[in-house]
């Protein structure tokens, strides 16, 4: 499945069905992040429920602690 993630086109295995699974796929599930799908911010429950479709645009931002 083709997704645009942070402006970059990427091929993602079909086994990755939800946004939550996508975060796990990238090994960033443990990080605190906010995710926008097709221009809409997703709450935590929505990250679980929201299914991915071909050509979805995702923006993922991670919180960091340094400073």
């Amino acid at each position, binding site marked *: 499945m083709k997704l645009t993630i*942070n*402006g970059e086109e990427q091929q993602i295995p079909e086994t990755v069905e939800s946004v939550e699974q996508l975060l796990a796929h990238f090994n960033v599930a*443990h*990080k*605190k992040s*906010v995710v*926008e799908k097709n221009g809409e*911010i997703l*709450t*935590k429950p929505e990250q679980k429920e929201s299914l991915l479709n071909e050509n979805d645009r995702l*923006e993922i*931002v991670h*919180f*960091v*602690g*340094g*400073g």
Partner: protein
Amino acid sequence: MNDGRYSRQELFAPIGKKGQQSIEQKHAVIIGAGALGSSMAETLVRAGVGAVSIVDRDYVEHSNLNRQQLYTELDADNSTAKAAAAEARLLDINRHADIKAVVGEVDPSLLESFLPADIIIDALDNFETRMLVNDFACRQQIPFVYGACVGSYGLTYTILPGDTPCLHCLMEDIPMDGETCDTAGIIAPAVQMVSAHQAAEALKLLSGNEKDLRRTLLSFDVWKNEHRTMNLDKLKKQDCTSCGTKADYPYLQWESRSSLETLCGRDAVQIRPAKTAEASLGRLKEQHERLVRKSNSHLLVMEWEEKRIVLFADGRAIIHGETDKAKARKIYHQIVGG
């Protein structure tokens, strides 16, 4: 004070003379005097913010000098406490500024000592303290400007209690994220970018231009040439325990905080005694004369069995070269006793 130093800021129409007068009557509290804290403090003091308070528990090391702009080689040579070095430099820049610098831990009573405050600037390097400050800002209804960076990446968000989501709305618990400036590195432009946006938001708030606040989460990577903003309004939780209608401010329960913590990626453990008995540095210096490598009024640096032990006047110690908490505690008791 009228030596013309604020003339260019007054010429900037959105601030003007009126905005500048407002800025000069405000009190900004900066939590942390590392990279972001240095930059924020310098900018706000140069801008004429009437009072600036800054707190930090650490001391200057040579590895800070690539980005922590208030400090010099001499500060690193002398292991000067950051807050003390910051205060001296800030007064060199603007002797009219009312600077309150505290060498020590951020806890609720310290935060209360800073009141009344008009804005709280996040310049921390860890989430645990950030969540504490977030609770405090929510309880006191003080705008809190989150900022953080690592590597070439950074992000910032302005929290307006009662209006925007708070940090606790955005993350349910304290993240245990391994990536820190000490493991992933940090370059100064990432710091300056976060700080520039935090400072702009601060100037808007302090000059009475709330309407111009950004109101989005801004994130960027100055190396990968990325930049994005997101509106987070939807993530505000009505039942948030920090900013919701029935808030009980869980992170202000100071007792629940650990007194032993590994310092993010620094191969070091910090120990804070359960009772905040002040350590007598003078007595310890005499007692361990052969171990003492450096000392000043805020701290003692000792070397013992290939460990570097830094003891602070407030009773804390940082044990370098040790990441095992139990071993660090043992060393602390051997050196300090009690």
